[in-house]
């Protein structure tokens, strides 16, 4: 079963996600330049919203960090062990897993569930002496640093297997939704249950420039007649765009990733929908404050035949006498949904719900508009009943 979310969200002038030149990200679609917010940018905002918005408890979430040794050592110290021993054991444990260290950090970011770290700490406590004995030291011909970089720790297979078995995904919802890759331990990779498209503007955009000067407070008052110039000059790029966002979830894959726990899966789907609606990337927000919630959230539950509706906007939307940019975008979305249905049939459609500020434009999308709370509950119900039956 699949859940699809189609969101239309218009932002005030902003630069929420920028590229290497500090310009807002863009792409071309239908031969016109569009604003873009990358998939990874929104996914991170959603992940942050899971915890900061109180949508999911800490033990159901994961952290992405290179500081795994430090994080593990913190837990061991909290369990009462002395700090220097804890750090040695933590180092040995990470090396025993086959991960190489660069100083105190792992070579690349690891995405680890809270329960995985807790289980790893428990395994460290259980095999404390073996791990202390295996901690990298100056050995003949190799420094401790070289040993760490070689990624070796001579622990016996029982300890290594105990540590490996802790990396089972830890029933972390964000790991289950967004997946992970561990280059040194490919067996521990997790296939993402969700798919998040890059957000693309329905309208065409050209980047605008804010020419700014920063005034030197003291220079002004020094009465220096020769130089009335500003302390600093520069430009900041920004644009304002109405984004079409598309997110879907494979509920079967989500359930598999969460070890068959349907309660967690339901919580995960509800949290994903709420976070997708409220999460906003933070780029340049201190100077732009573009906190704009979506004007339309359209949820579809299907058992196959996913339909991304980006092609509703191949021809960029423009404000007209009959409607502003958002009104016309909503109308286009509805027309496109209808025309796909006309051509391809129901295509596994099980149900659809719309929450919107423009309740008169619901049209063909659903029978009548609902609130966001009702939408979240209805989608979770629709998916859960199927789970129970199968």
């Amino acid at each position, binding site marked *: 079963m699949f859940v699809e979310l189609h969101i239309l969200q218009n932002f005030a002038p902003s630069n929420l996600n920028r*590229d290497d030149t500090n310009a807002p990200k863009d792409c071309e679609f239908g031969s016109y330049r569009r604003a873009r917010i990358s998939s990874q940018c929104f996914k991170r905002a959603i992940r942050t919203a899971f915890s900061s918005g109180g949508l999911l408890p800490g033990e159901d979430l994961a952290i992405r960090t290179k500081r795994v040794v430090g994080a593990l050592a913190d837990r061991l110290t909290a369990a009462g062990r002395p700090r220097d021993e804890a750090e040695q054991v933590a180092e040995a444990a990470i090396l025993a897993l086959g991960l190489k260290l660069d100083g105190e950090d792992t070579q690349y970011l690891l995405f680890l569930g809270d329960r995985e770290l807790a289980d790893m700490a428990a395994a460290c406590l259980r095999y404390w002496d073996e791990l202390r004995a295996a901690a990298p030291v100056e050995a003949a011909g190799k420094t401790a640093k070289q040993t760490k970089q070689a990624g070796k720790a001579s622990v016996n297979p029982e300890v290594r297997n105990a540590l490996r078995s802790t990396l089972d995904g830890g029933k972390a919802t964000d790991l289950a939704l967004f997946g992970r890759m561990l280059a040194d331990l*490919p067996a521990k990779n997790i296939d993402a249950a969700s798919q998040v498209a890059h957000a693309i503007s329905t309208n065409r955009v050209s980047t605008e420039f804010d020419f700014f000067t920063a005034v030197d407070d003291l220079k002004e008052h020094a009465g220096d007649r020769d130089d009335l110039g500003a302390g600093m000059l520069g430009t900041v790029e920004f644009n304002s765009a109405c984004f079409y966002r598309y997110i879907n979830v494979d509920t079967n894959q989500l359930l598999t990733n969460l070890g068959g726990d349907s309660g967690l899966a339901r919580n995960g789907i509800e949290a994903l929908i709420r976070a997708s609606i409220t999460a906003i990337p933070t780029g340049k927000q201190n100077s732009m404050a573009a906190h704009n919630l979506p004007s339309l959230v359209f949820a579809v539950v299907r058992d196959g*035949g996913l339909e*991304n509706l980006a092609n509703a906007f191949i021809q960029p939307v423009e404000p007209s006498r009959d409607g502003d940019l958002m009104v016309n975008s909503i109308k286009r979305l509805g027309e496109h949904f209808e025309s796909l249905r006309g051509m391809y049939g129901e295509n596994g459609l099980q149900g659809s719900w719309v929450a919107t500020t423009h309740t008169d434009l619901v049209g063909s999308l659903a029978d009548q508009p609902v609130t966001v709370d009702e939408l979240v509950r209805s989608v979770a119900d629709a998916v859960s009943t199927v789970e129970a039956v199968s």
Partner: protein
Amino acid sequence: MSTLLLRLSGPMQSWGTQSRFRDRDTGLEPSKSGVIGLICSALGRSRDEPVDDLAALRMGVRVDREGTMKMDWQTAGGNFPRWGKGGKVIGTTEAVISPRYYLSDAVFLAGLEGPREMLLKLQEALRRPRWQLFLGRKAFPPGEPVYLPDGLRDTSLEKALLSYPVQGGAAQGRRLRVVIETGMDESNEVRTDVPLSFAARRFATRNVRTDWREVE
């Protein structure tokens, strides 16, 4: 011999065959490994299962719309506080930088030639895919259905590619670029994109020929 046609169209696509580590490239048209991967997704065939039957199909691509190559500047993990001993902030973390190239606004028609009974199963899988389909990267879902209701043709790969209506709103009757898998003698290029194993990331080469042909 029959041919199954697939439409690969979306705001963003990426078909990389030469990437190493953080720099992710894209070719100018779909790769065989990418298309077979998409079919496996539709079938629900996981990456540690064999793909020889699919790799044996002969593939061709017609470029209905070239698109523009762009780069997505991706960073991870930067600008967070770095903690030293004693709980003091000693700096900020450095971002991992990964430039990822993609094709913007491109439309392709891909064809796979093989036995009809097998292509029929693939056609049905594309109509109701088991897993989410994507055009090279998971964040690039198709903008239009990959499945074409009249996509299963009882002709050769060349005939099928050159007779199907041009997609993506482009004008008919133009010369389009086609890249077709051929024998060594007729080919002018080699592509290292025939999947031997997705799990072990092993690929073999095939010979292709690039031509400019008119669509009937």
